[in-house]
């Protein structure tokens, strides 16, 4: 797999990560390392902390304890320029979160111009190139509300890519989509993975995880319970909780042993 030839180059290093919301401890000590070019899918039941883990990677959630290093920059260092670091970390949300008052083109150029200080022309060129990558060149002047959910999500991916990130975070990118629109978004993500993008993906799409991920993490109760190659974790889970989760996800009518 492509991860094997760049194992020394670490893109994301998470050590001893803990996160509490008030008295509720959501992450209870996470250690994850992601190599450059690696695609890691995070699966697990709702409430297991997988979205919180992802949101800690670009510090949308402030960790309670632990260390997060992305591209060699320690984000948890109080002196870290988090805004600068975030320009290199693309984030795709479950709810798309396109800027509803801006056209598709401006969604893709606004941060390039205001944050990266790129010129209007350069920003537009980069935006159009990324819009083409997600197959939506013809929507360049549309407003977000005029697009379907799947189209909005692909624009959101193009917006993140326009910042030239070295890591992409996907927080359940297809969970809010109608079933027939999921394929387009997963297709874009698959192409991105094939191009060698480092990706952390929180997802319920087991088929996608199995086919695209280099590694799968199964989370439950604030811990990484099991991790390994996708085929192994999904195809031949070792841990009891992984087994029962997968049984419920892969065959929803199946009554798991814990039920």
């Amino acid at each position, binding site marked *: 797999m492509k991860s094997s030839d760049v194992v020394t180059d670490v893109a994301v290093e998470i050590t001893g990560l803990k996160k509490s919301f008030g008295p509720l401890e959501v992450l209870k000590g996470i250690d994850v390392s992601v190599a450059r070019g690696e695609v890691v899918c995070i699966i697990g039941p709702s409430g297991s902390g997988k979205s919180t883990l992802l949101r800690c990677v670009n510090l949308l959630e402030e960790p309670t304890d632990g260390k997060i290093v992305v591209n060699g920059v320690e984000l948890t260092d109080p002196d870290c320029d988090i805004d600068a670091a975030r*320009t290199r970390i*693309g984030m795709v949300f479950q709810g798309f979160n396109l800027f509803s008052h801006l056209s598709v083109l401006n969604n893709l150029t606004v941060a390039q111009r205001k944050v990266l200080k790129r010129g209007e022309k350069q920003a537009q060129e980069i935006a159009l190139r990324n819009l083409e990558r997600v197959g939506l060149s013809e929507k360049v002047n549309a407003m977000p*509300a*005029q697009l379907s959910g799947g189209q909005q999500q692909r624009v959101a991916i193009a917006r993140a890519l326009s910042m030239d990130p070295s890591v992409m975070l996907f927080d359940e990118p297809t969970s809010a989509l109608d079933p027939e629109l999921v394929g387009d978004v997963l297709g874009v993500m698959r192409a991105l993975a094939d191009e060698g993008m480092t990706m952390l993906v929180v997802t319920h799409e087991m088929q996608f995880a199995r086919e695209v991920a280099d590694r799968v993490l199964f989370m439950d109760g604030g811990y990484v319970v099991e991790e390994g190659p996708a085929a192994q974790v999904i195809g031949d889970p070792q841990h009891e909780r992984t087994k029962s989760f997968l049984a419920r996800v892969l065959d929803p009518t199946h009554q798991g042993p814990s039920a």
Partner: protein
Amino acid sequence: MAMSKRRRAIMFRRAQYALLIVIVALIAVFADWEDIRRSFFNVDTAAKMFPTVIQTALVNTIIYSAFGFAIGLGLGLLLALMKLSPVAPWRWIATAYIEFFRGVPALLVFVALSVAVPLAFGLKFDINSTAGLALGIVGSAYIAETIRAGILAVPKGQIEAARSLGMSPGRTLVTVTIPQAFRIILPPLTNELIMLIKDSSLISVVGLTAADYELTKFGRETLSRSPSLTPLLVAGLCYLIITLPLGHLSRHLEKRTGGRKIGTPESTGLGVSA
């Protein structure tokens, strides 16, 4: 025998129409139209008000209101941001200001600015500044609360998206939060503008020279010379010339922002080019 509910409802509605027709007919027959015309709409009096009522009074009303709204909007935005500040003293100051100026009559502020402040501090404002400041100071207290509500109504995901693209908190506020907040509050903000236009009549407590008359003062002055309701009616209609289109605009904007969802008629066929 007994009428069905449906039938009764129809009969009741017809009875209401019949009653209205009778009332209108009675008024038409018994009213002294000549007297009404004389006291409500004396054409000579109305004609004499033109063109001053437009050229001076309406223009002054618009100028005072425009100054007031500009100051109110600026001050209101500042107060809203103060109220949302993590620094507690800013919030206290903003809250005190808002509570105070929402709680006292606007008239009192006009008098204070035109009489008490010049007396106490030796500052003398011209009429435009007095009207603009008084309207702005009072209006900002209301506008601040509206803007604050608008900022809070911007979905959290929009702010998270901006921050995750590397925008600083200030940049996010200017680029994403405030533009979206103003879209949300355009209808209530238009209402506040209309209220402010009507409050501009309070400037007449200040001694105005004829050139500074706004609509209400002008109407009252004309009234003292030709006692009929006509001057007030003309002044009132002039207010409507401004406020009715604004109300219309507000509803239009409300419809447009509400219609920005998927699948509305206007969302098809737009914005496709490359």
